């Protein structure tokens, strides 16, 4: 079993126009910059991007937005300082936005990966973000029914990996990466260091079963 891709370009080659794409990262940490650059080069467009933020400055997701490749963003916090390209596209009405509370975003992603049909959360009950959603009261407390959030592909950033697709992470770069790897049909991991020997089974964070492609990209932001 060898899930290693020869290059970033080979890793992102199967992503078609219109794909729903999860992209790991929070702020500037744990973002698969190499894969995003390769995707930009590859040319896929009309993408739905599921990520916590909507890019900042001229890097990462902001590059995809600047190049007009993104049709829809599903995220919790598009207003990171410097999210100029998201704001420009949003104000021009060129992009659809779905704002999801961060914990609900994480849980909807996990729910998809875990093969469940939905969950009841107290988060956002009674607020604008629960508008139109099914709710119920249990033991006097209000809950919102939330649906799983699936994706065709996930772009993941990890610290180390092996040919079986096992991954471990560095510090807070872990964030959404493990849960997104679970939820996408095809998860592509950019790892800072691809090991020849298998990772220690005790320290694997994302088991290889959740990863379809691994590619080395040595740079750290």
């Amino acid at each position, binding site marked *: 079993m060898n899930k290693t891709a020869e290059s970033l370009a080979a890793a992102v080659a199967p992503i078609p126009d219109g794909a729903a794409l999860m992209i790991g990262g*929070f*702020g*500037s*940490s*744990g973002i698969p910059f190499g894969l995003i650059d390769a995707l930009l080069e590859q040319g896929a467009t009309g993408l739905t991007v599921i990520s*916590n933020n909507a890019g900042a400055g001229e890097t990462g997701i902001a590059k995809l937005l600047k190049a007009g490749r993104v049709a829809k963003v599903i995220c*919790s*916090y*598009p*207003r*990171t*300082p410097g999210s100029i390209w*998201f*704001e420009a596209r*949003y*104000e021009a009405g060129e992009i659809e*936005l779905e*704002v*999801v*509370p*961060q*914990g*609900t*975003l*994480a*849980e909807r*992603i*996990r729910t998809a990966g875990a093969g469940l049909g939905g969950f009841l*959360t*107290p*988060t*956002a*009950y*009674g*607020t*604008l*973000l629960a508008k139109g959603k099914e709710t119920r009261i249990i033991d006097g407390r*209000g809950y919102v029914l939330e649906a799983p959030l699936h994706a065709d592909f996930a772009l993941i950033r990890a610290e180390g990996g092996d040919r079986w697709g096992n991954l471990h*992470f*560095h*510090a*807070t*770069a*872990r*964030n*959404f*990466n*493990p*849960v997104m790897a679970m939820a996408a049909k095809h998860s592509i991991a950019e790892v800072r260091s691809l090991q020849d020997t298998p990772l220690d089974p005790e320290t694997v*964070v994302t088991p290889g079963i959740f990863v379809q492609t691994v590619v080395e990209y040595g740079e*750290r*932001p």
Partner: protein
Amino acid sequence: MTAQGLNRLEDAQLAARVAQDIPDGSYVNLGIGKPTHVSGYVPDGREVIYHSENGLLGVGPTPPEGAEDRELIDASKRFVTAAQGASYFEQSDSFAMMRGGHIDIAVLGAYQVAENGDLANWATLDDSFPPAVGGAMDLVVGVPSIFIMMRHVNRDGSPKLLKRCSYPLTGLGVVNRVYTDLAVLDVTKDGFRLVELTPGNSLDAVQAVTEARIHS
């Protein structure tokens, strides 16, 4: 209504006041902005463990310049360090800590707080900006003690402590205590109850810049 003539705590004094109420051994989430400064004022001898929703339990001090790990940040996207006894985890575990009642206290900023404990701190009525919610709605439903830290009135003098919020809500009936530059107030089933006034202020003067009634 204006806050002129009232004695106001500076931001640092307000952070120090909140810090007094953080007990030894508690797990605390500090919201983006002013609340992040609270950790600098917790009295010596108390071990408090700070949770950052991007996946760190045990946020340590800011690293010296040049020694930053660019992938070790807090929820405000500032560079941080990991304290002794820290751990890293992914988002669904991080929010399990928040929603599941495992964190003891969250300190958050606010646009508006209502006397029924409703909180508005994520969106205004100006919809020319894209809305952004982050983890605020998860924190307020899951953390048993929600402390709000904010100016008592807006820059234009309009009140932030209201009968009912006019901005979109973050959570319903979730606020436990409000720390402002002018006073500290608890939210009770009868509404706001005065805990203390910033020295030199009278209740009448503070009430005058507060829309909701303050019970004493």
